[in-house]
């Protein structure tokens, strides 16, 4: 048989003479050139035993469990939150009734930025892109009727993660739950905030210190909790390529591991509870390759670089979400197709948990019908397509394995660049990530604007937009929140609250672990704003340099 290069040179070149290729971009969404064909010649460096192995075995390229979805399907976890705690609590109950298997909470911007609902900076934003949580009182309403031992909850919270986690745990304790049985995830990944999403409060150094506090406190006190979800999702949404998403996310994870080791923590104590969160974008094979490469790189880093002994420390467990940025306001129903295909890529990539976007999210927060349809999409993939019957079904595909290798190669090259800059925090200071992501997003925009890359309904196949129903946020949300805040401040024990805040200030100043102080603040009904103000005072606030 001819080798690939000769076939391309002879047979393919001749065929192209007779029948020209389409005028299209033959490269992945991230700009990796794609050959007309892939063969065994592309995989000469691949060692099946050491690079792929079996599912549930090092280096976990094929998945973290031996049985993968035959044993347990991925967790169908839909991100939800808007308006008041009451409104979101109702949506949570609807989602659980519809067959969802875990909860995921979206907070509003004041909460994400550590302001109470009645702060001047919160005006116009309360309950708009998530639910407002200013104290334990809101948390109690939010999870009313939900058993924290039975349902795992993920919370997308970063700068104020310690405080919000403590409020959740305080809520669970007050319900009589055993913290040893309470499971869930806090996102708590501040590095990607500096890199991409920009919801930071304090400078990088104390911010990372707060994260490491959870690494230290979590395993001993809430052993089933994933105290971090190292996130590439937002990096990708900000415009990075798939390879950058992969590289920067794993570099962030490595940075946290180094910081935790510097504190003297045992890697096999904390590493099993590190979880990840990746985007699933449009380029089908590239996305599947990204998930497989992520597991392989992480396993090797943890075992070979950091000397972790426990297999659970080597496993990259991940949540995935379809790409919000790929949704279009034009012909919004077309998003149903995009989401289905992206979700399928996530599943074929072996994700452990998945959120599917609703088709109306380029217009507003999702309506209940749109969110249910997105959940149904996962259920169709799980129960009707047959893809969950066998693990890593695309392994051995010349193209996929070749892309997986390429993803790994590019990620390792980025690790070297970041190390050369002095690590992730230094690279943030140097504007490295902002430049890399800014340039990549600019390139993608140009491709679309110039018509080199087609987007259905946007620069091709345009038509009139049908009207779709929109989710409205209760205009009363600010009032409900303000009233509850006033009641909390009036009815709590003022001395206990004052002492709790003092304890937090002391812990922060002395560099002690802040988690016990946060838990006491939560139980004393200190508000989120009060707690973050204490830390703003001790740590200062971060201003990022303005770069276009």
């Amino acid at each position, binding site marked *: 048989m001819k080798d690939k290069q000769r076939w391309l040179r002879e047979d393919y070149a001749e065929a192209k003479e007779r029948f020209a290729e389409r005028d299209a971009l033959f490269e992945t969404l991230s700009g990796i050139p794609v050959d007309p064909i892939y063969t065994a010649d592309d995989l000469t460096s691949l060692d099946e035993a050491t690079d792929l192995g079996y599912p549930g075995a090092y280096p976990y390229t094929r998945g973290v469990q031996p049985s993968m979805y035959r044993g347990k399907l991925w967790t169908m976890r839909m991100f939800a939150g808007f308006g008041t705690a009451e409104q979101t609590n109702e949506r949570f109950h609807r989602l659980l009734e519809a067959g969802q298997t875990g909860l995921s909470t979206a907070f509003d*911007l*004041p909460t*994400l*930025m550590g*302001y109470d609902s009645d702060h001047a*900076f*919160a*005006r*116009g*934003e309360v309950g*708009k*892109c998530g639910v407002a949580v200013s104290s334990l009182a809101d948390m109690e309403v939010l999870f009313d009727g939900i058993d924290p031992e039975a349902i795992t909850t993920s919370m997308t919270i970063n700068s104020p993660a310690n405080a919000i986690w403590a409020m959740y745990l305080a809520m669970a304790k007050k319900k009589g739950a055993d913290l040893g049985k309470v499971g869930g995830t806090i996102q708590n990944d501040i590095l990607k*905030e500096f890199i991409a*999403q*920009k*919801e*930071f409060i304090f400078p990088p150094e104390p911010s990372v210190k707060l994260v490491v506090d959870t690494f230290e406190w979590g395993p001993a006190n809430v052993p089933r909790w994933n105290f971090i979800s190292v996130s590439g999702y937002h990096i990708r*949404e*900000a*415009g990075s390529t798939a390879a950058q998403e992969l590289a920067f996310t794993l570099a962030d994870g490595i940075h946290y591991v180094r910081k935790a080791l510097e504190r003297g923590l045992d890697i096999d104590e904390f590493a099993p509870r590190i979880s990840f969160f990746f985007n699933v974008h449009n380029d089908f094979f590239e996305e599947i390759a990204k998930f497989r490469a992520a597991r392989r790189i992480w396993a090797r880093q943890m075992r070979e670089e950091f000397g972790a002994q426990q297999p659970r420390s080597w496993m990259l467990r991940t949540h995935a979400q379809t790409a919000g*940025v790929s*949704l*279009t*306001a*034009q012909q919004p129903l077309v998003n149903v197709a995009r989401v289905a295909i992206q979700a399928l890529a996530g599943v074929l990539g072996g994700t452990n948990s998945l959120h599917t976007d609703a088709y109306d*999210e*380029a*217009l*507003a*927060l999702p309506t209940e019908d749109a969110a249910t349809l997105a959940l149904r999409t996962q259920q169709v993939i799980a129960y009707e397509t047959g893809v969950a019957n066998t693990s890593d079904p695309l392994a051995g595909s010349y193209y996929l394995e070749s892309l997986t290798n390429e993803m790994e190669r590019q990620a390792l090259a980025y690790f070297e660049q970041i190390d050369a800059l002095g690590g992730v925090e230094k690279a943030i200071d140097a504007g490295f990530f902002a430049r890399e992501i*800014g340039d990549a*997003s*600019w390139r993608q*925009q140009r491709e*679309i*604007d110039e018509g080199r890359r087609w*987007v259905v*309904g*946007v*620069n091709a196949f345009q038509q009139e*937009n049908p*009207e779709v129903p*929109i989710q409205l*946020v209760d205009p009363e949300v600010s009032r409900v929140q303000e009233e509850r805040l006033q009641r909390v401040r009036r009815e709590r024990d003022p001395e206990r609250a004052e002492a709790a805040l003092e304890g937090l200030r002391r812990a922060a100043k002395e560099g002690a672990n802040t988690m016990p102080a946060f838990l006491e603040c939560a139980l004393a009904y200190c508000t989120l704003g009060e707690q973050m103000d204490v830390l703003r005072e001790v740590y200062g606030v971060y201003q*990022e340099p*303005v770069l*276009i």
Partner: protein
Amino acid sequence: MERPIRVLIAKPGLDGHDRGAKVIARALRDAGMEVIYTGLRQTGPMIVNAAIQEDVDAVGLSVLSGAHMHYFREVVEGLAARGAEDVLVFGGGIVPDQDLAALKELGVGAIFTPGANTHDVVEYLRTEVPQRRQAEV
């Protein structure tokens, strides 16, 4: 020679999603306009001040958080209160159709939603700003 179009691109509020703002700023600059980008976390009054100090022709607000009605109103009314109602206020972000009419009534210009082409934004300013300058004379 006519001076180039001057545009302030602003991110009002707490939201940090700045991809769109930065892409638009770059596209307008590439098209020969003078672009000032405020950076994150601006209040309405801060944006109005910057627009007046920089003597811009247009202010583009990028809002993805759902708080668009609040911020557009603050900026439009703030500019009017300072006698700068001739400054064109336009924007982009996650804005449902239902709110577009209300924004128009406020006096807001075009709103570019996800999927918008940056060439269209450039063309829009090239058409709209000279008309406003002429109306001023």
